[in-house]
């Protein structure tokens, strides 16, 4: 009798492992939603950047404008709004300023101070700025949409290094090695470039069948985990150091915690992820739930 019961338990647990345990674990928990205020609602947020645990900025393509949010008590409130001279392809925080990559006017613009003031960073002729990342060397990595190359720029916009990467790069992030990761949307891939800027690895991202992955946002945390925003599935893929999927978060949908054609991601110093939920007209915060609580 005991043996038969043991056999049943074994079969059931094997079955449930095969049926339900095959996918990566869910490792993100929804933490908060930022929607702006009644007079300054977020409409089409396309990019986000975080300055601290209490301050972040969001590009809204509706006007277009940049909204700075500050945490007051337990809620996030809009503290500043500034119109953008053109449409932004990306937004980063470089330690002292938010820097937007303004594609339509072909320049980078830094926003700093209280209230926000802008400083233009001229780019070399013929560069059409796309995805942007902060470089630990004290400048930026920029995808040139026209030249289909990644440029390392100093803070004045002068090119220090460049590499051809091909078309359809939708996000960049620098790694601690000095290399970088590039999201290639139409291939559903993340490509790794080493410190010498040579492509060394290609990570094929799993789609949410039958929809293939369409990566549009990248972030790397202090432990080396990579977060990839999959626009089509509304998911965030969490990758281990060699590109294997360590977990997933969110899903496509309307309710809080779900994403609708998200388009950008940033990490707060405390580890919270902030995602530009373009279709949902909001930004959403998530925390890693497989690592204990975040402050």
């Amino acid at each position: 009798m005991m043996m038969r019961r043991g056999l049943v338990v074994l079969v059931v647990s094997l079955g449930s492992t095969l049926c339900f345990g095959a996918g990566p674990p869910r490792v993100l928990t929804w933490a908060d939603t930022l929607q702006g205020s009644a007079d300054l609602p977020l409409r089409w947020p396309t990019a986000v950047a975080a300055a601290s645990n209490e301050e972040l900025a969001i590009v809204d393509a509706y006007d277009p404008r940049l909204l700075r949010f500050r945490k007051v008590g337990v809620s996030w409130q809009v503290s500043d709004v500034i119109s953008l001279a053109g449409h932004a392809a990306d937004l980063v925080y470089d330690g002292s300023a938010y820097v937007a990559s303004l594609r339509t006017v072909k320049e980078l613009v830094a926003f700093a101070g209280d209230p926000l003031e802008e400083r233009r960073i001229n780019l070399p002729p013929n560069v059409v700025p796309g995805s942007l990342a902060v470089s630990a060397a004290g400048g930026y990595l920029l995808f040139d949409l026209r030249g289909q190359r990644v440029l390392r720029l100093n803070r004045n916009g002068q090119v220090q290094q460049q590499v051809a990467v091909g078309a359809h790069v939708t996000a960049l992030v620098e790694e601690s090695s000095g290399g970088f990761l590039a999201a290639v949307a139409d291939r559903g891939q993340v490509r790794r470039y080493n410190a010498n800027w040579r492509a060394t690895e290609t990570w094929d991202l799993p789609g949410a069948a039958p929809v293939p992955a369409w990566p549009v946002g990248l972030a790397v945390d202090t432990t080396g985990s990579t977060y990839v925003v999959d626009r089509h599935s509304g998911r965030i893929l969490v990758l281990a150091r060699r590109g294997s999927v360590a977990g997933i978060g969110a899903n496509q949908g309307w309710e809080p915690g779900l994403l609708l054609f998200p388009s950008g991601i940033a990490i707060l110093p405390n580890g919270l992820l902030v995602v530009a939920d373009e279709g949902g007209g909001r930004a959403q915060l998530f925390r890693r739930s497989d690592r204990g609580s975040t402050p």
Partner: protein
Amino acid sequence: MRVATLLILGWLLLPVAGRSDLPPGHQIDVGAICLDCHDLDGALEARFQHLPVQQGQCDDCHNPHVSRFAGLLNQQPGSLCITCHGQIRNDLTKTEVHLPVAQGKCTYCHLPHGGNNRGLLVELGVELCGTCHTEIAVWKERRNQHAPFAQGRCSTCHEPHSSSEPSLLVASSARICSGCHPADGSLREAHSGYPVARADCAQCHDPHSSARDGLFRETVHAPFASGVCTTCHLGPDSRDPFALVSTIDQLCGKCHGDQVTESLQAPFPHVPAGGGQCTECHNPHSGVGSGMLKTDSDRLCVSCHNPGGALSGEGGRYVTHTGDMDCTICHQAHGGERPLLFADNTVDLCGSCHTHEHGFTHPLGEDVRDPRNGVPMTCRSCHGIHHAPGERYLHGADQKELCLGCHKEIGSR
């Protein structure tokens, strides 16, 4: 008791499992039994038979008693074929897999019992391919036809199962072409002195047929037709003869300024167009339609926006906006002012075709907020654009659940 059960089971299974163990003269001729009822539609009289049919081993593929699969097959059709035709496993690992192969629908092309064509093909050459690739009939109407195509020899250039080359080609386009058209001096001469030996010939020449001489594609770009290649390229004797004299958008913008500006300035750019990469979609030499696209628009879009996903709707129960629909009816190819490159606000865009539904509907628009995320309600709040799990393309397979997701007060009544 247990012994008796085993004996009865053994006796029942004997006809299926024990055929070869029976002494000569007592063996069961499975094929003969089956043929008492199944005449195989004349397959036995055909020129070629599938080996198991020839050997009367129907039970290699069919279970005589019961099966979970149609036709009492032992396994799903594709998996069943692979048990003997193991080389198909390698085919499945290549980058381009013919859709029927990927879907295990071997019988789209092959007869399972017997037929008059080698490989048990249902038809030969273009007659077979044309049953799915209906565009072949259009190509057949054109005045100039490439010899292999005219002769119906599709497999001269295409692999039937899979390939590492696009369009299931047997090799790179240049390599296939040079098999018949050697890269000698005359080739260079015919191309204004440019070294085209390694170029992709199909970029300008239609490998099937064309109404134009030289098998040029439907529309020829004026600067290309003039033969003055240096309008865009460096000279044929320069170090990098195919290099452009300026950036692509600057070149294109000389004549197509409005479109280039529209692409570069769009708030929501089509990724390549936003960077002025016009040639991602357009062929600057000769292309399809007035837009000189690289290929038909329905095929062009899905070359990046993978058809295995949203468009084919393989995973959705209800598939919408497929077939002859042109993506540019709803999406702006050069980029637009709205997310997802929608040509208009969703309500008006959907309403432009769905006029009936537009007249009586759930309240929509700026003043009606979706309680789930606070954004204005649109048709897309409830309906999928490309595919959906529910009837009428509703996002929820269970309509009630979808409604109650917002109208929670009704659920609590």
